[in-house]
């Protein structure tokens, strides 16, 4: 049975109202500055870990390899990255004695750890992992308490010279969420429970380190340990 003209008018009025509300909500969402969150409860796919074993720095022929499991929002990791790593870099890595492997170990209590790790992963796509990694650690006090860490990481991305269109697409896709989680789970399996933790020749070293301690460690291991790859 056909509806009365009044009934049809009422229906089209309601339909129009729903359309206006829907378009308004979509428009509002589009006008908001894009924030990014990287999920932790991802299903890890084989492609997430295929061929990827962390971010490497140093010579392939270095006698010692150290794997660092760290969290961008962890204060000790920040101190280590900004105060100790430059010396380690100059003294051991650039001299070919040490190869450094960085793995993400984002702790649950840190809301921006995964976004930071993802930002560095997106920088890696453009061959600028280490500059972005260092910039994120340098700026930890700025973004750790901010309302939108992702926005600050984007500014760092611009500073280190990333193509922002590619960076934005990478961040929005969340494509490295699985890889970050895989790294975290691998750390857990190795026995990592706090950050930073170093894995050297199959042994875990937890606590606070300085460049002198790392140098002594490399000195003690160099004659005995070959590549841990």
């Amino acid at each position, binding site marked *: *049975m*056909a*509806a009365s003209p009044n*009934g*049809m008018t009422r*229906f089209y009025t*309601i*339909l129009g109202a*729903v*359309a206006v509300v*829907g*378009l308004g*909500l*979509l428009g509002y*969402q*589009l006008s*908001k*500055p*894009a*924030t*990014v*969150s990287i*999920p*932790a*409860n*991802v*299903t890890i*796919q084989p492609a997430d870990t295929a061929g990827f074993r962390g971010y490497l720095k140093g010579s392939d022929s270095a006698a010692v390899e150290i794997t660092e499991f760290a969290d961008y929002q962890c204060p000790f990791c920040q101190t280590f990255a900004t105060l100790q790593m430059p010396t380690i870099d100059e003294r051991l890595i650039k001299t070919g004695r040490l190869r450094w492997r960085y793995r993400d170990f984002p702790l649950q209590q840190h809301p921006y750890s995964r976004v930071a790790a993802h930002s560095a992963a997106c920088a890696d796509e453009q061959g600028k992992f280490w500059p972005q990694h260092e910039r994120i650690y340098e700026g930890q006090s700025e973004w750790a308490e901010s309302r939108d860490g*992702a926005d600050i990481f984007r500014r760092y991305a611009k500073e280190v010279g990333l193509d922002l269109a590619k960076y*934005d*697409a990478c961040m*929005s*896709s*969340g*494509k490295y*969420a699985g890889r970050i989680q895989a790294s975290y789970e691998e750390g857990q399996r190795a026995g990592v429970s706090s950050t930073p933790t170093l894995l050297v020749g199959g042994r875990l070293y937890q606590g606070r380190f300085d460049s002198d301690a790392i140098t002594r460690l490399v000195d003690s291991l160099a004659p005995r340990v070959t590549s841990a790859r």
Partner: protein
Amino acid sequence: MIYRMGAALMSLVGVFVSAYLYLYQLGRIGTLACGSGGCETVQTSVWSRFMGVEVALIGLVGYALLLSVALVALRPALARERWPAALLAALASGGVLFTLYLTYLELFVIRAICRWCVGSAVIILSILILALLALRRAPEPRAG
């Protein structure tokens, strides 16, 4: 006609829900209003695409098609016709089957629930029910 109107309204809501998810997949919306975190897990998983096409885009096209058919079915000239309601029911049945497949993936493969996907499942199911009620109310075709 009330059932056809209901189906049109629900289809329009479905258009907006799937458009929202599609804009997220395009990277135009930073975070989904979800609460559980399950939405992003589902939407960034490999199963957010079906045969290379974003599931949200399939939903958007599907709901737009349902909306068009429901609006055509509301034309006074077709008010007594049975086929528009039958077409609506057939399309909604396809949508429900596809939704069942996606819900299975969420529950047993991805192991995360996207509230917007649950919302879409309720919408497509309600469209099917409304289309079946419209079909039941439509007059039987005359013999001869």
